[in-house]
């Protein structure tokens, strides 16, 4: 089973993507999509040797909801700054320590932080496990770091480690 399906999450995701693009859930589409999904996930195991384990799938849904709300709020905040006659945000760089080590969790955190308009992930230093973040409207640095740690890092630690 493990030989045939090294990345079940990736394969399932690809199958759903195939069916959505075909806009039908007929038997033929499911079979063909399944073959493609299994083949691609076997090919991907050459690039991603380790198994991806999600320990708490329900927490993952919570993560998506929290990130979505944050993205909406940040969008409105940045828009209000940009429509100001003289946009003058107090931007700044933050160097932040992370206890997170799992590469997939780090990738998810990077995508969430960059997709939020108020912050951008610049550079991760693996040796010291710190990350350089640029924040659009920086009010209180310690508070910002504490918010990210509490809101995202704790959840990701629970999901992946």
């Amino acid at each position: 089973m493990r030989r045939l399906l090294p990345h079940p999450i990736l394969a399932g995701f690809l199958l759903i993507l195939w069916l959505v693009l075909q806009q039908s859930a007929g038997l033929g589409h499911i079979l063909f999509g399944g073959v493609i999904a299994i083949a691609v996930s076997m090919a991907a195991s050459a690039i991603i040797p380790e198994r991806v384990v999600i320990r708490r799938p329900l927490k993952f849904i919570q993560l998506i909801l929290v990130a979505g709300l944050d993205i909406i709020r940040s969008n409105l905040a940045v828009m209000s700054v940009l429509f100001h006659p003289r946009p003058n945000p107090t931007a700044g760089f933050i160097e932040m320590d992370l206890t997170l080590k799992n590469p997939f969790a780090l990738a998810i955190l990077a995508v969430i932080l960059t997709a939020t308009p108020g912050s951008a992930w610049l550079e991760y230093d693996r040796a010291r496990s710190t990350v350089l973040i640029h924040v659009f409207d920086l009010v209180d640095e310690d508070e910002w770091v504490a918010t990210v740690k509490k809101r995202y890092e704790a959840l990701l630690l629970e999901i992946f480690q």
Partner: protein
Amino acid sequence: MIADLPLWLSILVSAFVVLGALLTMAGCFGLVRLKSFYLRIHGPTMGTSMGGGLILLASAIYFTVTRERLVVHELVIFLFVTLTTPVTLMLLARATLFRDRVEGNEGVPKRPEKAETPASP
């Protein structure tokens, strides 16, 4: 354009499309009005996160109602754009940091002492 639409549908789709376009436009104007590259990098993410999301959602709702079946393939574009833009922005930001440090520009954080080769994660 088809001849007749329910009123709620047209109002919902209109609101989503206009708000999404407004957010995207704000991001693009930010690209022009902000002063430094690191500030400008926050502009396009508005178009790809909520602006694009609202327009694509409006399209999905519109076609689902008018075609009378579930049309969700806009979701694929949304997922693709939202997940890939951070990747390109991170690459661009790292390239800029690299060049700024080589040129010795001011206002850029120093490279950490224990330097390692810029390996991709």
